[in-house]
């Protein structure tokens, strides 16, 4: 029995998921274009339900807000370089989108390569979704700095785990985060990322833990620094 993630679409639009299910579903959403397309209509419908309850707010609220925004700094638009976004070697939703644009630009010569990447991406997306939907999916969270988080959702039955990194501290000197599966003290590289990304790791059997190290850009064959974090599998 697996949880059918698709059945959570309407509860998600109505905000009827608990926080853990909501988070899991949002990871799935990143992978599922069909879900996003259908969600738009559901969210629009929910917004109409919300709008129907409208009621004039107290007049002081407007004044308070205008006073507050005058002294409240705004988030700057995120303009992430493609290279920085595409730090992960595998399962790169955003890079794959970029790749889709590139198909046209590169022309026939580049097509086969790009298509293979798209196929890989699709396979990885399906693998990620199957881990998220696994009934034995288990989650572990590590925090870094103020807002940085690495979440690992693992499933023994799928023999796989999904790593979701978000807002990790920026690294200087062209360095990247590298993820390793450590089995009998021997680390196997799973890929690199700069600050955020999603990756799927397969073959968890016998793995002791996942380690994250900081490595030179492009990654290392073996870890060259002590792990900044380990997550037990």
């Amino acid at each position, binding site marked *: 029995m697996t949880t059918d993630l698709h059945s959570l679409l309407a509860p998600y639009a109505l905000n009827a998921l608990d926080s853990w299910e909501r988070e899991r579903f949002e990871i799935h959403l990143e992978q599922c274009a069909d879900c996003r397309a259908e969600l738009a209509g559901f969210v*629009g419908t*929910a*917004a109409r339900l919300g709008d*129907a309850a*409208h009621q*004039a707010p107290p007049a002081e609220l407007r004044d308070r807000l205008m006073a507050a925004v005058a002294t409240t700094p705004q988030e700057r638009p995120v303009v992430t370089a493609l290279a920085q976004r595409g730090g992960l070697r595998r399962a790169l939703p955003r890079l794959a989108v970029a790749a889709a644009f590139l198909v046209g630009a590169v022309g026939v010569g580049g097509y086969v390569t790009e298509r293979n990447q798209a196929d890989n991406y699709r396979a990885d997306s399906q693998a990620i979704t199957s881990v998220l939907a696994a009934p034995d999916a288990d989650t572990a969270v590590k925090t870094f700095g103020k807002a940085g988080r690495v979440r690992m959702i693992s499933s023994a039955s799928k023999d796989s785990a999904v790593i979701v990194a978000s807002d990790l501290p920026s690294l200087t000197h062209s360095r990247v985060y590298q993820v390793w599966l450590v089995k009998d003290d021997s680390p196997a590289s799973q890929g690199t990322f700069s600050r955020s990304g999603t990756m799927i790791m397969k073959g968890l059997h016998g793995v002791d833990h996942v380690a994250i190290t900081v490595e030179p850009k492009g990654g290392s064959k073996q870890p060259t620094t002590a792990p900044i974090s380990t997550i037990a599998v």
Partner: protein
Amino acid sequence: MTRDKTSGREQPVSQNAPQSSASPLRLAPAAPDTPVDLGDLLLLVARGDEAAFAAVYDALGASVYGLARRVVRDPSRAEEISQEVFIQVWKSAARFDPARGNAKSWILTLAHRRAVDAVRHDQAATNRENKYDWSNGPDFDEVEEAVTISLEHEQVRRCLDGLTELQREAVNLAYYQGYTYAEVAESLGANTATVKTRMRDGIVRLRDCMGVEA
């Protein structure tokens, strides 16, 4: 909502107008019937335009406050939530992605999520204090009230009336009262799979009835 403004209806200058980051964008008065495009306004808000922010508030303040009030009931809590929502809009307007839906939906989604989180948080605190047993579900009266909730908007009410009772209860308890689908299932004595299906059928029917573009 109606609010007296010295300059009447406002709307941003067109996209290709010369813009300088140093001087705030001027808001040109528009013909009374010209709808203000909230998405355009949010673009201006993202660049720090306070007049555009005021226009967004004037367009959606009543929707956000009314929704918060419906979910949390308490007027001062609803006001608090509305303030948080609009500060969030101000701070993160740059994150609004028109490709994922319209501006109104985005802001009402922020508002609804905050209101639901607040009501769940408050409920959890009350439960800890009162050792209230959730397994009993809400009082019958409360469910009745949810079902017969009176909505000003005629079309929305008509569309809700077009749902089956279980669909309507599922949508009402979740959306207007902040229940998770598991809590809805418990309070209606249905299984969770059924409730998820009813929510889906209900929202599809509402979408079609309201003519919301997918």
